[in-house]
């Protein structure tokens, strides 16, 4: 299997407080990888480092064998990395359509964009119903679907999801989980999933990393982790 994403020894600081200490993570082509850990363990910081929203202090990030740290976010979108940020971050005053079209901002071929749009709408029929509604007026779950759809509009090879289950009604969490699996399978998109909801994350991913205080505490197959008592303990804040 070829690595699509490879993080080597990432260090990252906010002002003078470290957020990541020597994190190494990899995602293979076509794989779904989960990053779990307690609130503040550094999960989101990893995604921010990958997308260039944060500059890393040291280490290297490779995408398809190419060094990408230091590249601006817009360049990464063109290269095929799309991120669904934490807290959804819809454009509240734009319609669902405009939101989705923003996802395709870096693409120029109209026909292809239309094709992707149809795919997204087929995957999330709810969005079709809300097509001309302002995004800010939708429910949390609907917004979450829309931002995933928006990320797909960029036709990514690697999808970074930051806490997609956060603030979503429990019933919809399952829908979202299902669609992540489907996207991974049908669109051949590798997924890096950051979640607090470890049960959901571990159930849909192949491999998982558990983060604690800015570094990787555990790594392994999701299936095995599901029953691992150490995972629970890490969540409660203990040290290993």
């Amino acid at each position, binding site marked *: 299997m070829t690595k699509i994403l490879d993080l080597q020894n990432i260090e990252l600081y*906010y002002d003078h*407080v*470290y*957020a990541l200490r020597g994190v190494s993570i990899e995602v293979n082509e076509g794989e779904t990888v989960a990053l779990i850990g*307690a*609130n*503040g*363990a*550094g999960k989101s*910081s990893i995604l921010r480092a990958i997308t260039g*929203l*944060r*500059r890393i202090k040291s280490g290297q990030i490779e995408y398809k064998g190419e060094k990408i740290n230091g590249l*601006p976010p817009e360049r990464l979108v063109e290269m095929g990395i799309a991120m669904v940020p934490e807290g959804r*971050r819809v454009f509240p005053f734009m319609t669902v359509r405009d939101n989705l079209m923003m996802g395709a901002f870096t693409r120029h071929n109209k026909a292809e964009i239309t094709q992707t749009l149809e795919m997204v709408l087929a995957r999330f029929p709810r969005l079709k119903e809300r097509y001309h509604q302002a995004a800010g007026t939708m429910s949390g779950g609907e917004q979450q679907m829309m931002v995933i759809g928006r990320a797909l509009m960029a036709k990514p090879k690697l999808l970074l999801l930051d806490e997609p289950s*956060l*603030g979503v009604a429990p019933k919809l969490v399952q829908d979202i989980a299902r669609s992540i699996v489907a996207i991974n399978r049908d669109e051949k998109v590798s997924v890096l999933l950051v979640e*607090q*909801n*470890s049960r959901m994350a571990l159930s849909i991913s192949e491999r998982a990393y558990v983060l604690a*205080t*800015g570094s990787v505490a555990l790594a392994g197959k999701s299936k095995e982790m599901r029953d691992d008592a150490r995972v629970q303990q890490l*969540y*409660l*804040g203990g040290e290993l």
Partner: protein
Amino acid sequence: MERFPSNPNLPSPQRGNLSNLSRFVQESRPTWPWLGTVFALILLFFVIPDFIASMRPEKQGLIYYQFTQIALLSIAAAGVWLTFYIGRINIGQGALCLVGAYVSAIVQVKLDVSYWLTIPLAGIFCVLVGIVIGWPILRLRGVYFAMITLILTEVAKLVVLNFPIVTNGARGITNIPLPEAVTLFGFTILPEFTADNNRMYFYFLSMFVMVLTFIALFRLVHSRIGRLCKSLQQNEELASSLGVNLVLLRLIPFCISCFMGGVAGALAAGVQHNVGPSIFTVQDSVNYMLYCFMGGLGNLFGPLVGTVILRMGWNYLTAAGDYQLLFYAIALIILMLIIPNGVMSLSPVRIYQRVVGWLGNRRPTLNTVPHNRKS
């Protein structure tokens, strides 16, 4: 927030705010305030007057006046700084100064009250005004608060102009007497101000009030309320989750700020012997904000330093004649580019590091997205 349960003891960067917060609240008090105060008192009440006394007599009035202005403007600016401290941009201090000046003048002229009493009276009146105004508008944040306060100065001016029965309207109050002597048991506590010596006495008075203001500010910032305010400045949700009464916590500093504005106004009314609707204008309100930015919001002496720099700078640029404002603007822009966080953000250590950094390899370019901004 229905988040995964997390351990509060876990040291994590994202909980930095919370741990900082508790640290602020518990932090011990500073060690050297009295030394600084004594030094400042000696400087302001002995060294500077002595220096001024060595000048030509015609020049003394001007220098005293300039220092007096700096003192009373920095008192008002200190109030603005305090509202910055709770995370609010206040561009309405001019309104409070105007109110303070008018209260002092009206009470003196119409009710024949001693000037000395009108200074605290003006402050207290402004506190009442502050409660009435602050209660509703302190909920506003960021530029919303800034812009609403920007209107206040204009409102104050229009009130003064439109209610001539109380304020004497457009003509202002021009017959304010000079402060009289105060004696207690035969001792003269406060001397009589006369046409000849009032510039000097007003210098001492305003400097005294200024020192008091900054001592009060210092105490406040290092009190429990002050530390809570600082937490407010950083994260309001977090502070409210600690069970703090936010409304009150915001209102108290705002009222103190209004008090300072009122006192500055009353001082100005005394210094000037008269008040008119244009004694404090929108320009003054904006200036106070600029003083705070120029001095730096991170340090409580920021407003004082900012006032000194901008006010002295403006005076100094009189030499440029027609080009005064042009030079002033260019200087401001350059200063802003060099020290965007204000003069007091400069620390000798950091300057040293900067210089070494320049001499050595260039620093890596900073991130393109300012992380501190909300979208």
